[in-house]
């Protein structure tokens, strides 16, 4: 064989330690095979040629969804469909499910994992904005031990994350839900399904008994090199009853925060405009879910 022949090594470690050991020992490009719905496509399209593929789906703690101190701890290898079909998760975090449902078709969701969606770090990833507004935390383990990374600090650029060499996401946690709170994620795509988001907006808000918003977090996807938390957008809602003025301010703040590109999925101007439109619509849904 000549030097052109590509060899891929595939491993299925049974424990986290074994996985980390394999990853740190490999000098070449290592990819984690979670759902595989991004990695396998990238390999097929010759975008990547990993030396080592580590399948983490046999590692027990990666597969479970657990209630944890009022919140949830979701393993990195939990699939989209498993999350969608969970009896309680959608009641607490319908906005995250909105995003997960849009990751792809039923077939894709049958394999795709939220952790994979996060780690692939597409600026348009559908699960990321609602995870950010939920305050999700990624639990990461590596050769230097364990650490937590808030999802808001996890993706750093297109295809780039805060992970160091040898680190893997093991699970991510969601906090306990405050009463009278609700979240929603909307995205714009030309077709009803199967598209990558042109713009994505997540809103997580809390209302008091009188219907006034006491807390609101807004995140935008597909309008910058990574998903963005937009403090000004959330601030536009706090202290209001989501009246027309508040909604207009929300939309303006969302649009102002965009720094999108022109690409085959949408123009700059379009994304900026629609970010505002979707912010208003997502806020309305979140408010209804919060019991407005």
């Amino acid at each position, binding site marked *: 064989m000549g030097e052109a*022949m590509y060899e891929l090594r*595939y491993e299925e470690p049974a424990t986290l330690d074994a996985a980390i050991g394999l990853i740190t020992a490999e000098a070449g490009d290592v990819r984690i095979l979670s759902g595989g719905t991004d990695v396998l496509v990238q390999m097929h399209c010759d975008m990547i040629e990993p030396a080592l593929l580590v399948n983490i789906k046999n590692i027990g703690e990666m597969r479970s969804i657990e209630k944890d101190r009022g919140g949830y701890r979701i393993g990195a290898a939990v699939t989209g469909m498993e999350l969608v079909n969970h009896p309680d998760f959608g009641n607490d975090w319908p906005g995250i499910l909105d995003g997960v449902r849009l990751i792809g078709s*039923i077939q*894709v969701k049958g*394999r795709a994992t939220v952790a994979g969606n996060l780690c692939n770090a597409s600026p348009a990833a559908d699960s990321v904005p609602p995870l950010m507004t939920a305050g999700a935390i990624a639990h990461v383990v590596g050769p230097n031990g364990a650490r937590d990374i808030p999802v808001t600090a996890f993706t750093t650029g297109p295809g780039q994350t805060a992970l160091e060499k040898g680190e893997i996401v093991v699970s991510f946690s969601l906090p306990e839900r405050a009463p009278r709170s609700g979240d929603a994620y909307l995205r714009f795509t030309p077709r009803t399904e199967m598209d990558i988001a042109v713009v994505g907006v997540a809103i997580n808000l809390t209302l008091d008994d009188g219907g006034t918003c006491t807390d609101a977090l807004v995140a935008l996807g597909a309008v910058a090199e990574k998903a963005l938390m937009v403090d000004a957008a959330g601030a536009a809602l706090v202290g209001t009853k989501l009246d027309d003025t508040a909604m207009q301010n929300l939309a303006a703040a969302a649009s102002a925060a965009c720094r999108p590109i022109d690409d085959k999925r949408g123009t700059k101007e379009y994304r900026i405009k629609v970010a505002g439109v979707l912010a208003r619509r997502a806020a309305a849904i979140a408010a209804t879910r919060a019991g407005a």
Partner: protein
Amino acid sequence: MKKTHVSTTVNGDDVDFLCEPTQTLLDVLRDELQMTGTKEGCATGDCGACSVTLDGTLVCSCLVLGLEAAGKKIETIEGMANGDELHPLQRKFIEHVALQCGICTPGLLVAARSLLEVNPDPTEDEVRLWLAGNLCRCTGYHNVVEAVMDAALEMRGA
């Protein structure tokens, strides 16, 4: 590339094959097991023509590695009929002219069967949304939806 020996179950039968690490389950079904009922339309998970179930879950076989099939239960279109008795979905597809060229049909049937397993009484919208991962260029989906609704009706014993 070096090949690995894999044992798995396809349509209830124990099978073995050799595959390279980059071969997908789709490649393996078609090229190593000569089960060509599952089709390649895009190899990137965008068309659903390669749909199979893996341990009961509907997936695109182009998004699963052959090596990942070890020890799993795979169901393909070839296992859908019961001997020479067609599954109600297969019969209804024929009856309602829900197939023309037929290349997307195995994927659609596997996906539809999966739907009816989790939701035996879907609305038309639910059928359309579930099948959004299966592209068809010939039928315009109209007869496909009718066939699935009619099969669901029959399977509910209504």
